[in-house]
């Protein structure tokens, strides 16, 4: 049963992601991306990572996507933007990247279909994650916080309109 759910969720994820990259309207794309993220969250849950699943929903689908929405709203992209996007996105452009992606995918499949990869997944509860996170990975946590700080400062600096420009 859970297997079926996994494959269903995977299918939804792929399909919605495909929709993301093909949309002309940024808001539509965002909505599809949220669907995609939610289905990935479901997969996390199936894979026994409920903590990650929660974070996926809260931070990715919640916070980060909202950030995008804000930006799109601030840029005030309306129907003219869609027309402009249509001009930018020519059908022929899909060919090369598609081919490259196909090659990479085939290679990936060839690599992954090695022996001894099929096993069951075991659940890893949030407690274990937390213990490890603040145990051996505490330095990583500090670095991540510094990174976030840097992102904060950088975003503030960059997004500010300079007076003499």
């Amino acid at each position: 049963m859970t297997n079926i759910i996994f494959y269903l969720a995977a299918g939804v994820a792929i399909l919605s992601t495909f929709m993301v990259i093909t949309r002309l309207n940024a808001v539509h794309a965002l909505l599809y991306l949220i669907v995609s993220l939610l289905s990935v969250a479901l997969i996390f849950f199936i894979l026994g990572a409920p903590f990650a699943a929660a974070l996926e929903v809260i931070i990715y689908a919640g916070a980060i996507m909202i950030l995008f929405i804000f930006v799109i709203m601030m840029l005030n992209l309306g129907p003219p933007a869609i027309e402009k996007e249509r001009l930018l996105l020519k059908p022929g452009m899909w060919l090369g990247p598609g081919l490259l992606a196909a090659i990479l995918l085939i290679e990936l499949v060839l690599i992954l279909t090695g022996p001894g990869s099929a096993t069951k997944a075991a659940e890893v509860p949030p407690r274990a994650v937390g213990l490890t996170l603040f145990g051996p990975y505490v330095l990583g946590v500090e670095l991540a916080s510094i990174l976030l700080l840097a992102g904060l400062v950088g975003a503030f600096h960059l997004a500010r309109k300079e007076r003499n420009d």
Partner: protein
Amino acid sequence: MLTIPVSHGLLLAGILFLLGFVCVLVRRNIIFILLGLEIMFNAAGLAFVAAGARWGQPDGQIMFLFILTTAAAEVSIGLALVFQLVHRLHTLDIDQADGMKG
């Protein structure tokens, strides 16, 4: 418990990553490129989680956490750059921003 081969999880991650990559390659709108990057980050996180689940270890989720952090920072910077791009070049077309030639 469920018996999903780890390779299937990784394959899904790969497919999602490639879709994101295609997005980066194809789209010229910087917002879509950022979206593509998000997809790729997410796919990378998925790969870690799948691998972590395979061994029943928390390290995969921890890596996902770090990736999440990075993605958050990246998005904030990226969107700030979108503002700059629009402000300076009045377009979202990333190919217009090719001032740094060799």
